[in-house]
């Protein structure tokens, strides 16, 4: 193998690939990265047997070939090279990296040992714009559970059915986030592991254009022209969640996003160990009050004017949950729908129709 390529581009791809490697010392191939030449391009491939990453960059290939260097070493070396253009070359069992100012040789592993990244037949697939995909994932990831005891809750549920558009949902059973896209697909039901979802937002954040999503029963691939990311899918079924989304509200509040976001954040400072803050809606005065108190640190209260219809309500919430729900709203106004102190509050942007967030309150004190 011998080729010339841009060091910065290679560095960027290798850093993305590194996140899809394994740190298990018994399997050194999984903490290495496969470099493979193609037609005027270099492929960077890594896997931890749960996900697989493949990125391509253009390169001037002089001699075809493959190499499997340990990824940590490669990253450190690339980082230290000040020059733009580098040459990669196989020499015996070493990868030789030459730039204008330096030369290094990295000891490689046998390419034979590297796993084959499974291929998926392009039978079931759809295309989604990069912005839409990352937005949908970013809106739902915070609500997904982090525990492994219920894998279906530690995943993003992506589904569609007949005339319902492709919808992303996640819940940890304390809050739930739903994001409807404008895309249609006849029938779809997949559980994407939360970690893979996070990885996808990172990988595709800077790229533009459409992303192809190809899937079968066990696996899913997200790919555009340069990058392809494969993940296993979670087995199991997502809970029947539609019934918990309230259709009507006893109290409806519309408030400036910045004002409630600020006061929620401030109230968090004085919340107790339980992370508890109180929202109190006074319909007659048109006030939304955010308050908190802790015997150790002090107390806080903020009053925002709001458009309120319905009855007064006072409910307690974990401020982390509330903050995450509010932060995801893009518009300037927030809608809050309450059904008493024991039922979930619905949070959404006033002008958004696709994204909603439900947060269960905490038991009153």
């Amino acid at each position, binding site marked *: 193998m011998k080729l010339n390529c841009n060091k910065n581009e290679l560095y960027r791809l290798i850093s993305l690939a590194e996140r899809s490697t394994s740190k298990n010392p018994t399997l050194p191939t999984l903490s290495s990265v496969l470099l493979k030449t193609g037609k005027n391009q270099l492929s960077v491939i890594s896997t931890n047997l749960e996900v697989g990453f493949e990125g391509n960059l253009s390169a001037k290939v002089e001699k075809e070939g493959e190499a499997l260097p340990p990824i940590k070493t490669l990253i450190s070396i690339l980082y230290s090279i000040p020059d733009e253009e580098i040459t990669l070359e196989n020499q015996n069992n070493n990868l030789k990296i030459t730039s204008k100012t330096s030369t290094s040789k990295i000891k490689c592993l046998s390419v034979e040992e590297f796993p*084959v990244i499974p291929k998926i037949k392009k039978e079931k697939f759809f295309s989604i714009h990069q912005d839409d995909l990352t937005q949908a994932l970013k809106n739902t990831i915070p609500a997904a559970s982090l525990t492994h005891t219920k894998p279906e809750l530690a995943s993003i549920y992506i589904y569609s059915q007949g005339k319902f558009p492709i919808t992303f949902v996640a819940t940890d059973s304390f809050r739930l986030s739903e994001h409807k896209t404008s895309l249609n697909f006849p029938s779809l039901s997949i559980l994407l592991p939360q970690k893979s979802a996070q990885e996808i937002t990172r990988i595709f954040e800077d790229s533009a254009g459409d992303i192809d999503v190809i899937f079968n029963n066990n696996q899913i691939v997200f790919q555009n022209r340069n990058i392809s990311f494969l993940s296993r*899918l979670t087995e199991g079924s997502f809970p029947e969640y539609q019934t*918990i989304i309230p259709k009507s509200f006893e109290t409806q509040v519309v408030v400036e996003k910045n004002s409630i976001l600020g006061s929620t954040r401030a109230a968090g400072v004085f919340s107790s160990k*339980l992370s508890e803050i109180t929202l109190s809606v006074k319909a007659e005065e048109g006030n939304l009050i955010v308050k908190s108190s802790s015997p150790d640190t002090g107390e806080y209260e903020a009053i925002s004017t709001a458009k309120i219809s319905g009855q007064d309500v006072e409910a307690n919430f974990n401020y982390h949950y509330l903050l995450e729900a509010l932060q995801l709203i893009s518009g300037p106004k927030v809608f809050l729908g309450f059904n008493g102190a024991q039922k979930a509050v619905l949070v959404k942007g006033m002008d958004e129709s696709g994204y909603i967030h439900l947060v269960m309150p905490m038991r*009153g004190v």
Partner: protein
Amino acid sequence: MTNEELWQTALNELELAVSKANFITWFQNTSIADRQDGVIVLNVPNAFAKEWLEYKYHKFILKALRNLAPDIRNVEYIISSELTPLLQKRRRERSIAPHEEQLEFKEFLVDRETNLNPRYTFDSFIVGPFNELAHAASTAVSKNLGQAYNPLFLYGGVGLGKTHLLQSVGNEIKKLNPRLRVLYTTSERFTSELVSSMQNNEASSFKDKYRSYDLLILDDIQFVAGKVKTQEELFHIFNSLYETGRQIIFSSDKPPHAINNLEERLKSRFEGGMVADIGQPEYESRLAILKSKVLGKENYINQEILEFIASSVQRNIRELEGALNTVVAKSKLSGKMLSIPEIKEVLDKNTQPKRIVTANQIIKCVADFFDVNEKILFEKTRKKEIVKPRQIAMYLLREDYNGSYPYIGQRFGGRDHTTAIHAFDKISKELKKSSQLVEEVKRIRELYEYNNVN
């Protein structure tokens, strides 16, 4: 040689042929899924393993297997479990579990097939004199499905444990025999399912579905009152299940004969098996229930506090639990055990206020219930249909309003206080004899307690 033995022996051989790391990566968590006509189907944990075994080790595997069983011609691979060995190691909880004060979406705990919540079991049910009949009947039913008492009809006020008992029967049956088909549903959901099945022209699949259960549990059956089509469908489903010896359990807030707008044929069928009521828990039971709930909260609760809560929250187990949780949460926040006066203050704020009822409300409700004009109660008539409401009104004024006998006499057209005493004694005695009167008094009380008559 069984499939397990065959694969285990083949693995021992393969272990020698490949490096240890490779063996662990690719062969752990594999097993034989099927063996037919000389074709072995291997379970592999993920797609990577499938690719790798197919392309790299296929020959080794086939050879190892053929050495043991020469008739094997081919090996196929399927992905079966999402667990790779790497993943298993990572299986530790990363996040701290949220505090118990955080409420969850309760709907998620529910089993999708049976609608049962696994939390409700007989083990967690506290038995006291107020519910022992209902409990005994339920356990009998769960031990002898379809034969002990069919149908079983449980009734009692809100928050007294009807749903807990119903679901316990379902969970117990599922535990003893997972193959039996169990469904728990509320009559409201039953109705809406019926309606949507009629809209979609799927009425027959609705009928088939409900006729297929071995145990059908219908909660809050009083809500079918006045719904003619639902009652008709329920009637046929009931008959079909009953005739084939399948168990049906109902619950309601009142006994069958007291449900208005319910067809006679349904009423009589509801009463045809066993009707058991759940009353209000007495002090000892309330204390026992509280004690069963304090596990893990001992730092904030002592015997005295429990006794105080048990004596101050009287009517409803759900409120009792709520009161306990409130006290615990409050003491956690303040970081110490609360004193009795503090607890009193907390509970006064949170629990339903004790009956505050005026004399006028009582009289109005009694008049409404017996459908007589309020004024007639004050007249000096001795017509039987007036005397009874009047005496009941006097009894309730004494019991719930704490009116003095002279005051009560005065209220009812300037009667003597002895008349009031007589009425009170008479109704008190009657109540011990006539269950119908007990029911009437209960329902009058409900009128002014729940409906908040102005």
